[in-house]
């Protein structure tokens, strides 16, 4: 318990820093640390699947994205900070936020006893899927519709981002071109880390059926490795109008949806799996979904097209 109190205090301390720091870059560093500490909290809360997601996406990839943005936007910070609202508004905001927190805290303290849980239903669903990890079973079977919609949300975000491109680079290469320096440290790091990272990503994805892990965590690592290879200049980002790229991006949701529809014929409901093939079908969904999510996440970090396709 002493450990938990210390950890909770640290989490709050870093959060306060993230909000109050004068320098935005320092605040982003605070946020990355916040994610790291949250991952510890998730381990303490017996949620290792969430800890994996938090450290990969919540802290790692989001952190990298925000760090890059905060450095580029540094010059705009001082003028923008002058628009800070007056003391009255800040006080009112503080009162409002305290009230919100207090209200939420009351609900937490008044949570019903015994705690309601869907664990037995989720457990009852597991044998039908052939999966050993209850969280993956929930994501792929019990609440598969959420997961299907989530893959679509990711695609929508990417379409939104691409549509921010100026007309002259429409369909072009996303992000800047990074040049590799064969003698450089960065090339060395990338050549060493990328293969290791791809192995780790596949491992995390594959054990997801029986142990903590799964397609989102595995896909994030694969995405991070692709971005690393791009930043080191080992590979260039493909132009967003490439047909293979677009097929790769929609393959996951499309296969998911198709197998979901076939559930009507085979098991009588959308996204229902016939008992004999459940595990096979889930793997058939997971492989393209992982590849699609990895590509989508990587392109979301890379940004909208910036360079025209023909020069």
């Amino acid at each position, binding site marked *: 318990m002493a450990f938990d109190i210390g950890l909770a205090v640290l989490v709050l301390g870093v959060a306060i820093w993230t909000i109050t720091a004068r320098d935005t870059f320092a605040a982003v560093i605070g946020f990355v640390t916040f994610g790291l500490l949250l991952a510890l909290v998730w381990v303490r809360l017996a949620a290792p699947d969430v800890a994996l997601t938090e450290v990969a996406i919540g802290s790692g990839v989001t952190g990298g994205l925000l760090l890059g943005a905060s450095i580029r936007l540094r010059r705009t910070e001082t003028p923008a900070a002058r628009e800070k609202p007056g003391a009255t508004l800040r006080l009112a905001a503080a009162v409002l936020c305290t009230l919100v927190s207090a209200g939420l805290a009351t609900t937490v303290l008044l949570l019903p006893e015994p705690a309601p849980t869907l664990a037995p239903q989720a457990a009852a669903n597991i044998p039908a899927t052939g999966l050993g990890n209850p969280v993956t079973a929930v994501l792929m079977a019990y609440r598969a519709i959420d997961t299907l919609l989530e893959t679509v949300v990711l695609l929508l975000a990417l379409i939104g981002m691409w549509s921010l491109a100026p007309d002259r680079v429409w369909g072009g290469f996303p992000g800047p071109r990074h040049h590799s*320096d064969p003698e*450089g*440290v*960065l090339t*060395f*790091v990338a050549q*060493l*880390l990328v293969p*290791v990272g791809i192995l780790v990503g596949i491992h995390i994805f594959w054990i997801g059926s029986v142990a903590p892990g799964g397609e989102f965590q595995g896909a994030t690592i694969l995405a991070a490795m692709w971005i690393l290879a791009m930043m080191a200049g080992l590979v260039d980002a493909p132009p967003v109008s490439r047909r293979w790229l677009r097929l790769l991006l929609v393959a996951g949701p499309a296969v998911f949806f198709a197998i979901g529809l076939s559930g009507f014929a085979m098991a009588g409901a959308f996204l229902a799996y016939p008992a004999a093939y459940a595990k096979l079908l889930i793997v058939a969904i997971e492989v393209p979904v992982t590849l699609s999510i990895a590509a989508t996440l990587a392109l979301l970090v890379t940004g909208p097209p910036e360079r025209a396709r023909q020069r």
Partner: protein
Amino acid sequence: MSLALDALTVLAVSAGAFFFLAGTVGLLRFPDALSRLHTLTKADNLGLGLIVFGLLFQVEGPFAALKLIAVWLLTLLAGATVAQLIAHTARPGGSPV
């Protein structure tokens, strides 16, 4: 036999935690930033190595042990490259990485 292994674990993990503590004291006491970070990197990497060594006696199976060692090696590698990259960017007139 396994009592001896547990004792080894306690010894190595204590030593590891001690290095983390010592590094932190160094963090607060050394005068300039560079020597501070330099010392701390070494202390932390050694501390993590000792903790990994101590945990090796507790895990089940060679795969779990291999993963522990992989974590340590990756941390060493990441730490070293970060120092290199930062030194590269901080150098005035240095080529952008």
